[in-house]
């Protein structure tokens, strides 16, 4: 009768082996324990001794083939043998239609995909008759994200003014007060303002009505830019060991400073935002912690230290993520930085970013605050040592001069390449930036 030798687990927990050479050929007579093949596992090259004596009927895998544990290697025609318990061909049980229960400790291990489970435990969540299946979150058209991350929307320091009954009405009608311009005295949002906003058909509602069924799907071609972003992220995430630190800081004084500066003539026509200040502070502290302004060159076995800071600003454009950088940002003053940033972001939004602007970045900032986010674990732009994410500035109860006060705070998240930067250096850098934002007057000490 024909007996099949399936590849066993030759080590402890191996799943496959590569056939190197066959020492026998079809039609040849083999003895018990005769070496029939050399196979290579993840651990060793081993000789396979034949478990049966007989004539080789079939060889299943050519040299060079990787065979999964439990799959047939060789069939031997054994004279007058009864089926042996230990070496039944794997096909036998399957052919019989019986759910094969693989031995788990010896030989072939547990079947990877069809692990035997207690029959009674199989409880698929089938909705009862008449019961509507819970709809999976259908794709809902989301309002276009701001064209660029870099643009800080002019956020009112106070929330829109209105009266409590009007706020309740807005809540009931699902109207966002922040999106409304009040028509009342001093910009007060009135009941009429809310009602007229509530009457207007809101875009998401319409989209939701015509959303495709949960079973439907839409396939979108991966564009070159998405592909580029994906491969950059994968490359970075799986070569640079990332570590991320967070720090929340009271930026009230910085906000006040920005307010004052905006009114000054030097910044006329410029868009001065917290991002500008964070960028300036980052440049100052990159000079003090050069580890964060460097590059790991594994091939050369060297670390590259950059003299200047080419400051990347992550921008979400209609076509995907771009990180153009401002060359030698460390040599610019606040007004120059603000001007550069504006130009950079504008070009990114218009799809006019030059290749030069995308090359040779040394450190990046991503402003996730514009999406109303506080913190994250950003992935480093490949070839750089760190990336700083700034969250949104929000009013929060915060300790201030020994009491709790409503302060404006924001969270900074710093991801760094732990090959280049250690925790102490990263912490010093992050705390340094936070120190400037907390007390912008301290900038004077950097001059």
């Amino acid at each position, binding site marked *: 009768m024909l007996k099949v*030798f*399936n*590849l*066993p*687990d*030759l*080590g*402890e927990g191996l799943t496959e082996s590569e056939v190197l050479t066959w020492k026998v050929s079809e039609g040849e007579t083999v003895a018990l*324990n005769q070496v029939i093949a050399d196979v290579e596992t993840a*651990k*060793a*090259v*081993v*000789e*396979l*001794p*034949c*478990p049966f004596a007989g004539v080789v009927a079939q060889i299943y895998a050519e040299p060079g083939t990787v065979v999964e544990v439990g799959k047939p290697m060789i069939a031997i025609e054994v004279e007058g043998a009864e089926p*042996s*318990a*230990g*070496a039944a061909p794997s096909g036998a049980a399957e052919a019989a239609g019986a759910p094969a*229960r693989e*031995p*788990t*400790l*010896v*030989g*072939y291990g547990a079947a990877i995909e069809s692990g*035997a489970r*207690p*029959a*009674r*435990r199989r409880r698929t969540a089938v909705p009862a008759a008449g019961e509507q299946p819970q709809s999976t979150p259908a794709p809902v058209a989301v309002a276009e994200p701001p064209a660029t991350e870099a643009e800080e929307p002019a956020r009112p320091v106070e929330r829109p003014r209105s009266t409590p009954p009007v706020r309740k009405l807005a809540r009931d009608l699902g109207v966002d007060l922040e999106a409304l311009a009040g028509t009342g005295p001093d910009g007060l949002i009135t009941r009429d303002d809310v009602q007229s906003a509530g009457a207007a058909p809101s875009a998401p509602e319409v989209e939701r009505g015509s959303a495709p069924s949960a079973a439907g799907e839409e396939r979108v071609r991966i564009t070159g830019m998405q592909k580029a972003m994906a491969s950059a992220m994968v490359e970075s995430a799986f070569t640079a060991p990332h570590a991320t630190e967070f720090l929340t800081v009271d930026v009230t004084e910085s906000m006040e400073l920005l307010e004052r500066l905006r009114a000054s003539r030097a910044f006329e026509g410029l868009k001065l935002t917290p991002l500008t200040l964070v960028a300036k502070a980052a440049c100052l502290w990159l000079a003090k912690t050069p580890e964060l302004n460097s590059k790991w060159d594994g091939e050369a076995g060297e670390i590259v230290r950059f003299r200047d800071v080419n400051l990347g600003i992550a921008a979400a454009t209609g076509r995907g993520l771009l990180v153009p950088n401002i060359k030698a940002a460390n040599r610019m003053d606040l007004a120059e930085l603000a001007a550069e940033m504006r130009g950079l972001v504008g070009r990114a939004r218009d799809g006019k970013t030059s290749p030069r602007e995308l090359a040779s970045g040394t450190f990046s900032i991503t402003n996730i605050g514009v999406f109303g986010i506080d913190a994250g674990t950003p992935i480093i732009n490949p070839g750089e040592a760190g990336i700083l994410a700034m969250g949104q500035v929000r009013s929060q109860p915060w300790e201030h001069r020994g009491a709790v006060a409503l302060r404006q705070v924001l969270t900074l998240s710093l991801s760094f390449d732990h090959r280049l930067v250690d925790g102490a250096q990263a912490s010093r850098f992050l705390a340094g930036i936070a120190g400037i934002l907390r007390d912008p007057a301290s900038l004077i000490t950097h001059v």
Partner: protein
Amino acid sequence: MSREDVLTAADTASSEPIQLVAPDGTRRRHAEFDAMLADVNDDVVADLYVDMVAVRRIDTEATHLQRQGELALWPPLLGQEAAQVGSARALREDDFVFTSYRENGVAYCRGVDLEDMLTVWRGNASSGWDPYGINMATPQIIIGAQTLHATGYAMGVKLDGGDQAAVAYFGDGAITQGDVNEALGFAASYQAPVVFFCQNNHWAISEPVDLQSRVPIAQRAEGFGIPHLRIDGNDILAALAATRIALERARSGGGPTFIEAVTYRMGPHTTADDPTRYRDQAELDEWKEKDPLTRIEEYLHTRGMAVDGFREAAQHRADDVAEKLRRGITTMADPEWAAVFENVYAEDHSWLNRQREQYGRYQNLFGSDAGGEA
């Protein structure tokens, strides 16, 4: 002192292992050792040889069975037959043996059932045999822990006033373990009747022995005040004589003895290991010249025995043993699920009973045809 200097010191004539049969079969004289072998005539030597052939055959068959998917793992002893058979054959039935997982030659000589030797490696049982049936504990997987068990047992023998001995088998890798050093300390302090039989097979998995010990291993016993013997572990007569000396000392109240049997692991650490990645072929070839079996063949040849026919007979017997082993393993029934709860505690245990009951309910979910009986 550089590492080279240490190695030179370790190889000096004073630490040369005691050898009674040279690799070429020459019989060497050693007054103290020869005195222990007065009863060992050529027939006894031939009988020792037959055991070594059987042990090697079992080891080879088990290695094949692992490659064929019948065993999960196997730790081969190829090359260490003389150290194991020689020492084990010196023991009395009422002596108690504590071994590591590689002492399958010792287990064979103690009379362990062939299948029992392999059930654990097949995953069919969590333990191999009833230790009290043959006065041999089941193999210890934790490196060196059995030296403590042996010492404790020996201390008990002494308290009982018996003349039995305990023997601990371990390897060169174990000597660095805290357990082994604690055992040596206690054995010396209490003058326990225990024999520490260290098979220095030169490799602790992939770590060479000279990295582990800068002096011959036997010398370590001096610091504990334990008499020691350093023997050629591939010489079965030296192993037999040394163990007899140690046992006699133990039985007569002389306390522990440390034996270093210098041998060589010719195969991998286990079937999951590839020794070609860490050791030279030249080293292996050198030790093949010192094979424990061929030197006895040579010796018996010099004694005028017709070795060829004798060797074949021994091989046939060994093949029968191997066939019995294979049949036993390949037809072995899967254990009943409840077997795992047996021998956990000596007495009934409510916590374990609850687990058994819960596991039984789980097993029943598979239905009666899926091995859930018992």
